[in-house]
């Protein structure tokens, strides 16, 4: 019997989602944390996930969709395993943040907000990571890398499978 592996993970993911929904069921103002945790589980917010959340906590789908599209943190498309965020804040800008972005884009062959075909990387920008003293800065997942030159970028990215 050939049971698709992804079916199993999907089921586990939905069970996980149910737990989160139960946790927030009667908590005021819980839509945003719920979406945040749902995105943690699935990596992005699909239409199905948003519909399920709306139905369970009884808010109109239009509101859920509205919130999900308002905030830059929410993603409606699948993203890469490693999220690269190149800082384009003021301090990094005056120290050549744009060159870091170019170097990353060239290395990965995708533009800003693009995801590589193998789903290994997604390239994003951010307006300040709060490490301005180390500018220019980029963040891969939760790791912040500072004092960069364009030539350092490929080596750093290679480290993330």
């Amino acid at each position: 019997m050939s049971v698709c592996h992804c079916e199993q993970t999907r089921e586990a993911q939905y069970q996980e989602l149910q737990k989160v929904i139960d946790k927030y069921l009667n908590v005021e103002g819980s839509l945003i944390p719920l979406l945040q945790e749902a995105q943690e589980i699935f990596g992005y917010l699909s239409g199905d996930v948003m519909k399920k959340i709306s139905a369970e906590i009884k808010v109109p789908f239009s509101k859920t969709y509205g919130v999900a599209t308002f905030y830059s943190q929410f993603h409606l498309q699948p993203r890469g395993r490693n999220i690269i965020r190149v800082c384009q804040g003021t301090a990094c800008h005056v120290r050549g943040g744009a060159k870091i972005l170019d170097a990353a884009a060239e290395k990965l062959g995708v533009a800003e907000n693009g995801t590589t075909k193998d789903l290994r990387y997604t390239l994003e920008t951010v307006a300040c990571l709060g490490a301005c003293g180390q500018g220019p800065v980029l963040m891969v997942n939760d790791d912040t890398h500072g004092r960069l030159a364009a030539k350092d970028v490929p080596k750093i990215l290679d480290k993330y499978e």
Partner: protein
Amino acid sequence: MGHLSELHARCTDQYIEKFNRSRVIVGLGTCGIAAGGDKVMAAIQHEAASKNMHIDIDFTSCIGICFREPTVEISLPGFAGVIYGDMTPDKVPYLLESHIINRHPVEEWAVMQISEGSTALYENITKMNDYPFYSKQVRTVTSRLGRTNPESLTDYVATDGYKALEKALSMQQLDIIEEIKKSGLRGRGGGGFPTGMKWGFVYQAVGAKKYVVCNADEGDPGAFMDRSVLEGDPHSVLEGMAICGYAVGADEGYIFVRAEYPLAIKRLQTAIAQAEKYGLLGNNILDTGFNFKIKIKAGAGAFVCGEETALLTSIEGNRGMPRVRPPFPANQGLWGKPTNLNNVETYVNVPFIINRGSDWYTSMGTEESKGSKVFCLTGKINNTGLAEVPMGISLRDIIYSVGGGIQNGKRFKAVQIGGPSGGCIREEDLDLPVDYDSLTAAGAMMGSGGLVVMDETTCMVDVAKFFLSFTQTESCGKCTPCREGTKRMLEILNRLCSGAGRMEDLDTLERLGRVVKNTALCGLGQTCPNPILSTILYYRDEYLAHIQDKRCPAGACSALLVYQIDPDKCKGCSKCAKNCPAGAITGGKKKPYFIDVDKCIKCGACLPGCQFEAIYNDAAPHRNNCRPATRRTA
């Protein structure tokens, strides 16, 4: 209330006990980690274990010298702590052997020494107070940063933590508010609204349920004061909020933190759990019957959520759009209930004022702006980092004394203060005292405390464009002036930077800027023209150069660069012609080459390849060529 004194005594004992051992402390704030602090930490742990050293290894947050990160402090019992800068894992074995085993600090790597109590000083190492970066600073809000372990309640309580809460809980609510009013504390979130007055409004507001909210959204790119404080001294934020809660009659608090600050969120969670465990938060705090809970809300990425009404709407789970005020949050805030909303730094000032009194606080600062302010020094400055200075100090002192001047010997051009809401200040105005009113009068604003220093290679038109593209993306779209105005202004700026500017563009920009300023709904729109208006006012000749001469004096706008070859220097090697992807360079063997300006795509591929330095443009100017100094300010 014997409770706290008992805890205080226990924590102090444990804290003092630490100084009886040899200690190695690594600075692990976000900035320290970004510079490689975690790798240094791992090397220290490995070295200590393999050499069987009996030392305490601990961590702290960023002490403020970001330009010397990663930092490591070593202290031997009875001796001052020595802070080492620019540490790398391969320096660790020698450092530990010399300082700990042989008891000789490594002077060449030492930045400064800090003496706690009566510990002995070393001869050849600068004392913190004499170190130029710190000599003009005062450390209040930042006093624990880099000195205590931010995840240790012991360290906090031993350094007088929660004493102010205990004292406040024995005072009348109105007396606390009066003390804050007398201190002259003004909101550190940018606007500078008197904090005591705000608390008074919330106290008077009718309603059984009230909230206290801390604005830790810090969206201003180029600012990291709040992050540093949240990561370095999370308990002080909780203590300030609890005092506020008692004073205004609230029993619930929210901290709204940017999603981009995972470490700050983690340390706050730890601090809240510790405070609840020891009865410093939660029900019946310090046996006084006062209840106060604090929850964390992580933002979801929207700059406009730093605006107070948008922030509250976002906590409620909606799109974070601002609304018209009044009603002010003090009367109708979170879920329609009276709400006190302050910035992180504002709350952190509170315990110090309660402990030391408003007279102490008013001894710092100017007539209208009291106390100290934390600034982030960034950009083209030598000493990037976090600096807390008394209000009223001049910008020149901050940039040259604290900040150590401009990088690479370049010329100062401007300092941008106040982020996307602020403006640029030029050389002539550097002696202005830093206080809310002088900065606003100069066309900038205090803002949250980001100071981005720019030198002659920064193009002011490009800076204006940079801020506008930020505000344009972050505009929530609710009001027309901001939604449409930012788009149109950005279009014009893009045109100027690409060489298609027209003379009437300047007037249009100024007129649009005024209209958006006067008619936008919230602070985002009302202040977003500031970077444009202040640069047009002070650097008009740079705008004119972009429009009339189609050139960028700073050499930053790549579309405006004109590449040329000096026939006297060119040896005719043809390397540039081979590197040129557009086929714009022609010439013959052993004869000077020539760039066809119409074909040139300004990619710069030719420049680094020329070993005779014959190719030049505005960014890499021609050595023998004396061009008019258009980059001087008006």
